[in-house]
């Protein structure tokens, strides 16, 4: 059993018994897809990302007795395992002899993965926003477009674009907190 007390107020802090296959299944159902997304983003290779996900759950299962939900939620723990798996895999990939017409492969260091993880969290948070909210952030912030232009494109008053940016940031804060983000 993995339950050792602590607050169980989140879905992923319910007592997962990762050493049983059902526990691995629940954990995969909850986080498999996003872990794959992160691996694919940071490794830039879907085949390698599949390998990373398999290896992450295998290591999680093997280390199940060290999982303590009172220290970190399951999601955070799985990400920390995946980080190490991705670093190992990218080193193994960089170590293989380069092929004549292939791109040179450089193993990203731990810092690069940590940065990729931070980026992934914010991107994942933005993906979880409603379309209206995400749209105004993309247009006004990432594309730096004037509010008047965005307003006329969306057929809404400029003041609404502005208030939407505010509600979008609030929604993003909630989404990030759900993922365990700490400001």
């Amino acid at each position: 059993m993995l339950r050792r007390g602590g607050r169980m107020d989140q879905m992923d802090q319910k007592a997962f018994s990762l050493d049983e296959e059902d526990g691995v299944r629940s954990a995969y159902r909850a986080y498999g897809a996003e872990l794959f997304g992160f691996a694919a983003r940071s490794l830039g290779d879907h085949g390698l990302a599949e390998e990373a996900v398999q290896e992450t759950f295998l290591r999680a299962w093997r280390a199940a007795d060290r999982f303590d939900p009172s220290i970190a939620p399951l999601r955070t723990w799985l990400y920390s395992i995946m980080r190490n798996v991705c670093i190992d895999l990218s080193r193994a990939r960089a170590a293989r002899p380069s092929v004549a017409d292939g791109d040179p492969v450089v193993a990203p260091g731990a810092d690069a993965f940590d940065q990729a993880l931070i980026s992934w969290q914010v991107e994942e948070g933005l993906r979880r926003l409603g379309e209206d909210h995400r749209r105004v952030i993309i247009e006004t912030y990432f594309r730096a477009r004037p509010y008047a232009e965005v307003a006329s494109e969306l057929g809404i008053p400029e003041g609404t674009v502005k208030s939407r940016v505010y509600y979008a940031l609030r929604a993003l804060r909630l989404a990030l907190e759900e993922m365990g983000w700490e400001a």
Partner: protein
Amino acid sequence: MGSVTTEACRRWRETLGAYLLGHLSPEERVGLEAHVDGCRDCRAELEELRPVAVSLADADPGHLGKAPAPPPDLADRVFARVRDRRRLERRRRFAFRAGAGIAAAVIALSVVVALRPEPPHAQKERFSFTALPVGTKAIATLYTYEEDPRVEVWIEYEGLTPGVIYAVWVERASGDRVRCGTFDALDGRHHTVLTSSVSRSDAAAVGLTSADGRQVLRAPVTAPERT
């Protein structure tokens, strides 16, 4: 977050996002700052949202589209890998208990470097790969258990390119290849074990494909060579 106390608060708050992103005109900015200086709730709200606004700089706008979805069979491969490892560890414990003196070691990346105790009730068939590259040796062994119609694939190999990831698949009579997992060739000489979702009677061939798709090794398994 604090409650909106007045209509003025609501109006100013709705500009907080644009303020934090640096999108307010100088007049609006001065007006908002004056309000926030005198309103504790709005100030608290501003400070709650500030790190969120700052975090946007970490996102890559090129990665905001739909995240790539895992292939539908990845879940099964994850569980199969755990199941394989558990089965192996049970065998290992069995071997130690039996005093067989068989040392089994399990190292990272699900590669097994060991003598393999004979599993109970297994039908064991060995097959050679056709057209192996010079310097490469590889043998596929299929195990079939009484309680489970799915074949377990063992690949013993030597001379594979170190560090390359290989996908292992089982080919059906129809020609469809069903992937049963991947392994990392590490130093090029190892064994790996994977469970496929294909039953023995459906399997026509097993094989490996390197991650870049350049290297394909295939062993027909329709006629057992020796058991």
